[in-house]
């Protein structure tokens, strides 16, 4: 009886077919909306926390942050950001004094887009930290750009003007040079290129050192999406 029960039925009307699919779609839609609504707060909170952690990681000594949107030629501290606007994150220390910018950057890597965040202190024009947020680099080789502690650590006091240069491992001599990873030359050069390109784009826009926007009263932004 149970085996192949539906094959014994006479051909159902088209109305019944349409109704079946409509009801299935409706129930499915409701279920999806339910799960979306119930997980959204957690997902947003996770993203915000991840971003805060990343900002604090690339800017040592920072304990507060706010989103700075580039609008009409200047940086505005605001949580709202339109789709076509770019933003950086300002990092401030315990007293609320400005420390540096955490700048999101993205560009082609060896396999797919590498998205990263780097910390930049305008006072001494140094890159003080780098954190890869997303990448599909080859496991075991290209993924050393975020697994190799030496490589990540070498973005700790790196001079970025004129620009960062990736050199063969062990031959770092100048403050703007960085050791590329053996076996991941393309990926490590890609990281350096992404930072250089993003920096030349932003260096024009950032205000003079010392006149950065002060820490606002509003709660630090966090949910802003990264490129």
């Amino acid at each position, binding site marked *: 009886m149970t085996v192949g029960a539906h094959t014994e039925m006479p*051909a159902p009307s088209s109305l019944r*077919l349409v109704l079946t*699919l409509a009801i299935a779609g409706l129930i499915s839609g409701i279920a999806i909306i339910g*799960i979306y609504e119930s997980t959204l707060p957690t997902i947003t909170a996770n993203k915000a926390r991840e971003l805060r952690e990343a900002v604090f990681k690339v800017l040592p000594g920072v304990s507060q942050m706010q989103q700075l949107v580039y609008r009409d030629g200047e940086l505005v501290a605001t949580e709202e950001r339109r789709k076509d606007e770019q933003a950086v994150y300002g990092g401030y220390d315990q007293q609320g004094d400005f420390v540096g910018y955490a700048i999101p950057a993205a560009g082609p890597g060896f396999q797919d887009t590498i998205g990263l965040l780097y910390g930049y202190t305008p006072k001494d024009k140094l890159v003080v930290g780098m954190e890869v947020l997303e990448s599909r680099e080859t496991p075991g*080789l290209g993924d050393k750009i975020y697994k190799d502690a030496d490589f990540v650590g070498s973005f700790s006091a790196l001079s970025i003007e004129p620009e960062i240069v990736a050199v063969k491992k062990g031959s770092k001599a100048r403050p703007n040079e960085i050791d590329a990873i053996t076996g991941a030359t393309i990926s490590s050069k890609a990281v350096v290129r992404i930072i250089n390109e993003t920096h030349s784009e932003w260096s024009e826009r950032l205000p003079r050192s010392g006149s950065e926007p002060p820490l606002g009263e509003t709660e630090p932004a966090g949910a802003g999406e990264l490129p």
Partner: protein
Amino acid sequence: MKKRDNRNYDELIKGIWRDNPVFVQVLGMCPMLAVTNSAINAIAMGMATFFVLVGSSFLVSSFRNWIPKQVRISCFIIIIATFVTVADYTLLALVPKVHKELGAFIPLIVANCMILGRQEAFSSRHPVRLAVLDAIGMAGGFLLALFSLGAIREILGDGALFGVNLFGANFEPWVIMILPPGGFLTLGLILLFFNWFKEKKDEFLADVAAAERSGS
């Protein structure tokens, strides 16, 4: 009564070894090869698939007499896709790190032919109890297969299991094992073993049968 118990047990157990969806039926190869570069990814993928398969089998079997056969595949896909979306958002909310690693392969569970295959071949023709048992067995077999491949590849390719280093600093990892070719190699060798095992077993059974015949 005894016979029914056997049936239940059989439907549950067949997916794990005799009809293992990966090693015997060779289904669901896409996630099998793509996300087994570490044991934890393999387990997360296996759990997500487990949830989707058991949930869909339960629903498909419950509604099997209401779904007209002309639109059954569409209905199965709607049910499966709903469960996949639920799994997708749940993983994103609870374990964002794992979700990031698995990436596009979570939504692609919809296209896992093992799941649709079980709905069409089993759940839509059997009562709920058997359908759920079958789904648990099949999903368990899939999870087991993913885990064994993921563990082998992580141990050889990374010298670690669940991120815990096993061999110390002197071990030179076989990077190729966590790259796509390693997946094909490992899977090929496991399939080879399964077929060899099956052949040996058939030979053994034939020998036993022959011995019994000549004995009696």
